[in-house]
């Protein structure tokens, strides 16, 4: 009898602790998407040149600079030249830029595939600018705004998220940048070091869905 009672109490406690865990994780619902150290899912998305692009197209890459960006958000536009410069700086070092437009053109008419093509050719994008037609990749990664950067490192386990956040410390004015968060992180990875600043914040336009 006594034993039965103990088992009953223990199972109640167990249930209670589950309820408690459920409760606290409910509090963190805003943390959806990837965190540092997570493995990033594969992509297979339509580029502005009409071809599909996946990470497997880059067998020699050491990793990827994935940037969620769009056509007209002022913060995205202010970052365009810097994104082109990042691709020039890091593609040959093994970290090419992959830009993904997360917006639904039915909600944000400035972000249709055709207007993405116009943007890519007008700015002379040297990197793929991908259309997230199914609107699933941005959610899986956890991108909430444009621009929103994910730095991935290729490892034996998969593509490890090593940095999330801003390109640098001054979105609207590239000439006044003091700290290049993303570039610093790539150089640290290239040197075989741990990324020192893993997450940063920047103002951006909310993803339009």
């Amino acid at each position: 009898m006594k034993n039965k009672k103990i088992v009953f109490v223990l199972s109640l406690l167990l249930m209670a602790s589950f309820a408690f865990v459920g409760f606290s994780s409910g509090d963190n619902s805003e943390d959806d998407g990837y965190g540092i150290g997570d493995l990033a899912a594969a992509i297979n998305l339509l580029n502005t040149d009409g071809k599909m692009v996946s990470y497997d197209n880059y067998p020699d890459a050491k990793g990827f600079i994935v940037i969620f960006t769009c056509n007209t958000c002022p913060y995205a536009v202010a970052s365009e030249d810097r994104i082109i410069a990042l691709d020039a700086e890091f593609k040959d070092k093994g970290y090419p830029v992959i830009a993904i437009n997360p917006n639904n053109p039915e909600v944000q008419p400035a972000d249709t595939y055709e207007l993405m093509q116009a943007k890519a050719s007008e700015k002379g994008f040297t990197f793929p600018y991908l259309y997230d037609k199914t609107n699933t990749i941005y959610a899986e990664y956890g991108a909430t705004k444009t621009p929103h950067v994910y730095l991935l490192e290729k490892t034996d386990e998969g593509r490890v998220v090593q940095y999330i956040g801003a390109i640098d410390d001054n979105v609207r004015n590239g000439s006044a940048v003091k700290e290049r968060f993303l570039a610093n992180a790539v150089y640290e990875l290239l040197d075989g070091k741990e990324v020192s600043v893993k997450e940063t914040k920047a103002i951006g336009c909310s993803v339009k869905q």
Partner: protein
Amino acid sequence: MKTLLTFILGIVLFSCAENSKKNLAEDTSDTIELSESETSDEVKPLKRIEFGIPVYNFPALDEALLHKDNDSTYIVNFWATWCKPCVKEMPYFEKIAETYAEDKVKVVFVSLDFPDRLGPQVVPFIEKNNIRSEVVLLDDDDANSWIPKVSTKWQGAIPATLIYTKDKRAFFERSFTYEELEEEVQTIL
């Protein structure tokens, strides 16, 4: 047996309450820590007036508008003229300010438009839409250091809204309908 069950339930409920209390406490300690680090920070509060609109850097905004210690409820909305969901929800904030004026609910719109757009875009927008609540502009480039000071939960997307009284704070990185906003205001009142 019954007493045991009540006891266990009590523990569960208590720990949940403790948990939410802890979250609140964390929020407060966060702000305290910031004002401490601000003293060692070289950035001084800066405020200027342009086109009749107060323009703040973050330390000045923080001091002037994000920690008012009186009996009013403040709804601080971060927006920009180019942000469609922001523009869409502004009338709801205006209506809340009007409906809950007797409950001392005040709305402050913090524009994140680039400072050179203040004259050509922000001021005409305020006039055209007859915005009656206070509008200020935040001119501070180093978003990575000030975004977490508004809320550690903020990823940086707008619209974003802070609702606070002298002893409660709630932060939302989302758009509101009128009903949703009213519900949050009633929760905090």
